[in-house]
């Protein structure tokens, strides 16, 4: 009896102690902003690098930074991608953010900025922000102000199986949409599944519509449409119609409507195991192909999205996005200083050389070792324009409506015209 009572007292004491610790941590957090630089400061850093090599790379950088600044503690919190999104949306809804957190820029970041949660880094980072390439910064800039620091950038393109293309008699990667459809027909005729698609996840499908809209309507038209909330122009309907041409060839793997992306029977694994000839995917595709499937090794190749005959967009316009870090509005100045540290050429280059990240700093392209990633980096460096993923660039509701309607178009339940109408309707209601 007395023992259990003592146990209760001990537990209560432990609770008090823990509570005290928590309190102290948070006061140190907010107080750091105003006190002198020698005071103890804790910077809480949420990132999504839960896998190697980035996980230990960041941990190493944290140690190096703390060695240089003994008064600063960087609290490194890696959270898995999907869990991160859910967790961040919960804390932002309560009006708070971590000091530094992963962001993909675009409409989601804009909502957070409008809610007054994000620090404007324009003047604080003025001296070193010029080191970044314009394409990598674009997603985090609104009204000539910069709200995020990029650490990775990439683009979407076709990752294809050279052996299967050769088997079907396609020797040169298609450069126009007509050639592309021909290549799909040839692959089908040779008994090869031309394209793998993760229909369950919707976002991979939106790449096709977005690229077609970029090629046909052009980047400026996409931007204007987002401002006017009007996607009903003939060029956007045409993008849907072109996609319908492809869908009508039935190029996707069996059961693609239920397929995931990174699952053992998903899009990446289907290509990685040589069961389909290509996929339209971002720069991470080779890693996931190898992770979920066997990987293609030297058979893997990359070509950009073909141009569309008569389209207003340039074939060198790139579509993609990157990863960056945003700083919470109440974060201490050390938060931006830490971002400056990891963005220093000597530090960022190391990650690029490990093939873990792609160049975001000017003149970093030569550090890329992997052949295919080298092609991506070069294409990006020479891109005439850059469009962020539509489901990131637009407010979340509009972005999801793009994904949703394009998925319905691919499944055959919406016409190109209905897709344009549905996106417009959602954009108008936002």
């Amino acid at each position, binding site marked *: 009896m007395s023992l259990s009572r003592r146990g209760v007292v001990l537990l209560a004491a432990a609770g008090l102690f823990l509570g005290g610790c928590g309190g102290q941590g948070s006061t140190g957090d907010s107080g750091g902003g105003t006190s002198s630089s020698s005071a103890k400061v804790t910077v809480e850093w949420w990132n999504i690098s839960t896998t190697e090599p980035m996980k230990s790379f960041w941990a190493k950088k944290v140690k190096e930074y703390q060695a240089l600044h003994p008064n600063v503690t960087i609290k490194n919190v890696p959270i898995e991608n999907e869990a991160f999104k859910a967790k961040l949306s919960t804390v932002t809804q309560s009006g708070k953010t971590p000091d530094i957190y992963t962001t993909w820029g675009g409409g989601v970041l804009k909502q957070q900025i409008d809610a007054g949660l994000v620090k404007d880094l324009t003047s604080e980072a003025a001296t070193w922000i010029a080191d970044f390439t314009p394409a990598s910064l674009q997603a985090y800039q609104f009204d000539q102000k910069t709200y995020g620091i990029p650490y990775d950038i990439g683009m979407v393109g076709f990752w294809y199986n050279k052996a299967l293309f050769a088997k079907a008699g396609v020797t040169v990667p298609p450069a126009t949409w007509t050639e592309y459809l021909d290549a799909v027909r040839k692959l089908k005729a040779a008994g090869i599944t031309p394209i793998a698609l993760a229909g369950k996840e919707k976002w991979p499908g939106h790449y096709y519509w977005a690229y077609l809209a970029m090629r046909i309507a052009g980047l400026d038209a996409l931007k204007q449409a987002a401002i006017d909330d009007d996607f009903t122009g003939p060029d956007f309907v045409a993008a849907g119609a072109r996609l319908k041409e492809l869908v009508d060839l039935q190029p996707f793997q069996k*059961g693609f409507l239920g397929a995931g992306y990174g699952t053992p029977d998903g899009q990446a694994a289907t290509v990685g195991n040589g069961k389909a000839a290509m996929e339209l995917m971002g720069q991470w595709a080779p890693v996931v192909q190898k992770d979920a499937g066997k990987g293609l090794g030297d058979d893997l190749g990359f070509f950009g999205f073909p141009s569309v005959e008569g389209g207003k967009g340039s074939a060198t316009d790139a579509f993609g996005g990157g990863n960056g870090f945003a700083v919470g509005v109440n974060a201490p100045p050390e938060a931006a200083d830490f971002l400056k540290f990891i963005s220093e050429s000597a530090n960022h280059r190391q990650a690029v050389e490990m093939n873990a990240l792609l160049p975001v700093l000017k003149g970093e392209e030569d550090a890329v070792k992997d052949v295919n990633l080298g092609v991506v980096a070069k294409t990006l460096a020479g891109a005439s324009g850059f469009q962020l993923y539509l489901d990131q660039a637009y407010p979340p*509701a509009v972005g999801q409506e793009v994904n949703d309607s394009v998925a319905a178009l691919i499944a055959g339940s919406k016409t190109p015209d209905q897709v344009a109408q549905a996106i417009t309707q959602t954009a108008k209601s936002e």
Partner: protein
Amino acid sequence: MTRPALTDERPAPTAGSPRTAGPAATPSARRRRFGGLATITLFLLPALVLFGLLVLAPIAVAMYTSVFKWNGLGGMPSDFVGLDNFTRMFADEVFVGDLRRGLVLIVLSITVQLPLALAIAMLLNQKMRGRAFYRLLFFAPYVLSEVITGVLFTMILSPEAGLANQMLGAAGLESLRSSWLAEPSTVMMSLFLVMTWKYFGFHMILYLAGRQGIPKELGEAASIDGAGSWTQFRYVTLPLLGPTIRISVFLSVIGAIQLFDLVWVLTSGGPIHSSETMAVTMFQFGFKRSQVGYASAISVVMFLISLVFALGYQRFVLRRDTEGAITTMRDQR
């Protein structure tokens, strides 16, 4: 009738009868009653506080936000839209489809899943070798988490390499092969199959427990009267299982209304919304589209449907079962 009885009794103490204990007993009884109330309050308080904070308060907040257009950011909502979210909901074919699909799942659960569970429970009630093993085996799926079940069945029902199609192929039934979760026409059937696999063991255990509470003598008496096994089941076992069946139907319906995790892992509501449930739609709008006001409206409708069903069911169906409990409580007091 009662009035004269009361007036008869009342004058007795006031007439100055020798029962002096009467007036003295009243404060002590009051104190006892007060002490009882204090005890009840004290013991209920922690639960009430938790219930209030974790159940009632969120419901109130959801009801409040459901009349705003709100993206969930920047303090409290301010863009009041009245009942717009609700009219929008009932004009949205996905949400109306959710209601239809929910109804289909409820009807299928009651007409297929529960009878199956009952049949297996009756079988496992017989004396047979390895009975305990079979009980364990059929109950095992219920112990698995929904997410594990979902991942397991996405692999089994995978169109190319999945176990289901491989087995159909090996058995020479190629024509029965299907894309299961990837076809709008088959996805609901596949989903129901997984639901049944997951939950029938739970209902089976309920029925088994109910069956064992029925005294053997009743069955014996019936068989002496010449009742066959079916007649015995129909006129003795089934009526006496009534309370158990009513509770199991209740749990099954509420579960179907709130179904989320299994669907989320299996199909995320697709293809093209053909397996979406109310909870999935709510999640899509709340977390993916960040239209928290509209998502709250969906959750309010979900809550009201569950509440109306639960209250109606208790009032009209469970009345006989709960009545006993309430009257005994009254007697003890």
